[in-house]
């Protein structure tokens, strides 16, 4: 038991927690913007993979990690625009379109990877982002190594939370976006371009999903493999509900999920608790669901979520 306690109070545990949480925070906030505008972006899983792939490719050939991140975000945006065309312009079912976009993006990632890299025996790799210490702050005992010795993308993800809260709740643009998600007809009467707002929400979501994918292949690992997303996108969909469509709570959900994931990895490696390994792997999902049922029971989705907007239709 001592072994576990010493590990949990190990700085590495908290650093791992923040690292594991980063892609979840990025993609969850992304999904949040789309859903707040009234579009459930189920393309998330595929967009993350395609973003990871194109980001990695760009970083591999340009030797610039930041160009890679940019490419990942642009790819995400592109696929999000396609999602917008299907669900906003054509008004098709958001579920079906989302799954379609996921399948298409996954196929694209596979196809272009094969086209560019062929069939390598070992995946080609890049020099990944290394943690950047923030001067002064990184020397604070305990907090410093956990919070201020992370990769640059992690800081951006953490800053994104207050930024998106500000954007959504303090700016006229955020009000428009939320209104479009709650009552598009009222927004339309008030002169807001519903389609444009939804496209914008989707594009932000795509960019952040792409960045999340880039984080997985350029920070947490240094190569692209096809299993790199492994359902993380779907988790983000749940985290938005968990967070009751608010950035702070969603980020807290991502941190909780990462906390339990980091914890189960350490429990598996210790001999104190001898349970079937499936129980450990299940822990983050089960505990997130349990907390969600307790905390988010009164969560209310944006009223116009899943509903296409047609101007003349009531």
């Amino acid at each position, binding site marked *: 038991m001592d072994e576990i306690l010493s590990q949990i109070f190990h700085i590495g545990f908290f650093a791992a927690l923040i690292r594991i949480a980063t892609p979840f925070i990025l993609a969850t906030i992304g999904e949040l913007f789309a859903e707040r505008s009234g579009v459930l972006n189920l393309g998330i899983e595929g967009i993350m993979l395609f973003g990871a792939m194109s980001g990695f490719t760009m970083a591999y050939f340009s030797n610039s990690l930041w160009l890679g991140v940019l490419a990942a975000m642009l790819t995400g945006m592109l696929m999000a625009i396609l999602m917008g065309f299907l669900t906003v312009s054509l008004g098709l079912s958001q579920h079906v379109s989302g799954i379609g976009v996921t399948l298409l993006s996954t196929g694209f990632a596979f196809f272009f990877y094969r086209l560019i890299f062929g069939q390598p025996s070992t995946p080609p790799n890049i020099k990944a982002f290394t943690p950047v210490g923030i001067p002064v702050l990184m020397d604070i005992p305990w907090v410093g190594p956990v919070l201020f010795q992370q990769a640059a993308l992690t800081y951006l993800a953490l800053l994104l939370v207050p930024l998106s809260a500000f954007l959504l709740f303090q700016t006229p643009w955020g009000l428009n976006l939320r209104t479009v998600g709650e009552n598009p007809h009222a927004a339309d009467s008030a002169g807001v371009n519903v389609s444009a707002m939804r496209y914008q929400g989707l594009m932000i979501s795509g960019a952040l999903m792409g960045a999340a994918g880039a984080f997985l292949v350029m920070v947490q690992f240094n190569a692209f493999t096809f299993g790199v997303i492994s359902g993380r996108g779907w988790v983000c969909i749940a985290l938005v509900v968990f967070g009751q469509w608010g950035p702070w709570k969603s980020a807290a959900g991502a941190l909780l999920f990462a906390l339990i994931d980091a914890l189960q990895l*350490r429990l598996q*490696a210790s001999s104190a608790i001898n349970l079937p390994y499936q129980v450990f792997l299940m822990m983050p999902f089960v505990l997130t669901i349990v907390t969600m049922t307790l905390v988010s029971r009164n969560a209310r989705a944006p009223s116009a979520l899943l509903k296409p907007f047609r101007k003349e239709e009531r």
Partner: protein
Amino acid sequence: MKKEMVHNYFKKYFIRLIKQAGFGALALLVLGIFYQPVQASGLKVAAVFETPIEEPWVNQIHVALLQAKKEMGIEYTWSESVKSADFARVMREYAENGYKLITGDSFGAERIARRVARDYPDVSFVFGSGIGPAEPNFGVFDNWIHEPAYLSGMIAGKMTKSNVLGVVAAMPIPEVNRLSNAFCNGAKEVNNKVRCKFSFIGSFFDPPKAKEAALAQIEAGADVLYAERFGVIEACAEKGALAISNMSDQASLGPNTVITGPVWDMWPTIKHVVTLVKAGVPTAQDFGGFSFMGKGGSYLAPYHKWENKLPADVKSMVEKRKQEILDGTHRVDVDESTPHSD
């Protein structure tokens, strides 16, 4: 009046179009009768893989088949990332297009693969599988590389300073368990103070997760890790721990980190199977033995940079045990029970 003209024009146009199409079809038909596809002399071999070709398990089969293409003159095609839902269709397409040997991995589609095989008694099916062969034409093989895994464990047991070893593996299935157990048993044979830690990541191809699991083990004191999955070597390189690779020679991923590791060589299996099929011998048997060290189906990866860094007594100890395995005087126990961290 004008409308009628337009109508007539289209009518004429269509009739012409249909005539032309008819001639075209006829021409194609004639061509088809006289055209005979160039018959290749080689045996047609196809592989159906469930995962992308980079997955180390699948890659070893692929590499051996490419060698067979070069050295035995077979014709070789493959399909990768074939999910269970598509597995039967892809197998049937190959079986119906003159492929006489169909191979691949069937772990996710064991029943499907066996059912399809029954419908094509003239075709040999030889798949990587966790269970047994089936008459009349379904043979199996598997990565029986527990022997070099045991040898790697002996090295790890000697090289560890903290006496804590780590194993990061996919999931506790027999193929993975017997390697993990052999590794740990090898270490315990040479160092009775060794404790082994086991982590499973629950998927086959999620390197970020494997890396996090490895980092957690290193924090818990492990200093030599068995990288059953991709992602572990990177964690070791980052934290200055040592690594044992798996499945293929992965020293290039961390020349100063990777000491050695078990390598699976599918060439003896493929060579034997292709020879049998060419001779018309039925292949509904277990080819697992062809992956043992004695047959050359597995071996310990070259030491590369560690050639000079590894202590001489460790090297000679491994060499001695290796010879005993090759001579058949030492048998490495097959333990497929799910391992738990000590």
